[in-house]
């Protein structure tokens, strides 16, 4: 495993960190406060996790007044992504849906 992959896996192995990162991916930019409200840990703990994510290049911060906004950097996942296996997963799930549709067309 390359160093880049190793760092990403280690960074995302922590469930709290992974949840914060996933939330930023799904919902877009958020403040530390907003992320803390929904995490089960304290704000300093969330800040610490965000710092680790930032170090791995997985998030970027932006200061605005007294608030720090964090956003996900999807391009940092590049070393882990393989187009072929992604598309295989995509088409497998679509074939499942096609199978359901074909059954419904009988009725």
């Amino acid at each position, binding site marked *: 495993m390359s160093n880049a992959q190793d760092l990403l896996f280690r960074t995302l192995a922590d469930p709290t960190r992974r949840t914060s990162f996933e939330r930023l991916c799904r919902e877009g930019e958020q403040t530390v406060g907003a992320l803390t409200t929904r995490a089960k840990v304290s704000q300093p703990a969330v800040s610490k996790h965000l710092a680790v994510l930032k170090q791995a290049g997985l998030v970027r911060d932006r200061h605005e007044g007294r608030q720090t906004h964090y956003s996900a950097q*999807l391009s940092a996942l590049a070393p882990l*992504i393989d*187009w072929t296996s992604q*598309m295989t997963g995509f*088409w497998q799930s679509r074939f499942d849906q*096609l199978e359901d549709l074909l059954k419904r*067309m009988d009725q």
Partner: protein
Amino acid sequence: MTDTATETRSVILEREFPHALEKIWRALTQPHLIAEWLLKNDFQPVVGHPFKLRGDPQPGWNGIIDCKVLVVEPNKTLSYTWVAGEADLAIQSVVTFSVSPAGAGTLLRMEQTGFRPDQQRNYQGAKYGWAHFFGRLEQVLEKQV
């Protein structure tokens, strides 16, 4: 001679369905049926027809796949281009569906061949399929415990 500037990759999926071939062809070529199993679309089974498949927008991707019909051989082969992503960073690919009789049912074969500059592959992959990544990551992490 090897062309190092571009790389070709294919995804092939085959499945037998216990349904008539004509019915599967309809599911592949009628917009309201395509929408039910693949994505919302403005497809028309006409060679040269440009259309869009619309998925849910995600961070870094507007969810739109630009397509153009390449081949329509009724009850046999359907092929279209499939370009996901924006401008010059887009993933270029061609999707080809083939249907053939198999026993009492029908064999559906899907082949997607992608072409793109090698250095952009991973970056675009990340933009395009990040959601699927989480499932894979979970699996890898579970194996490591």
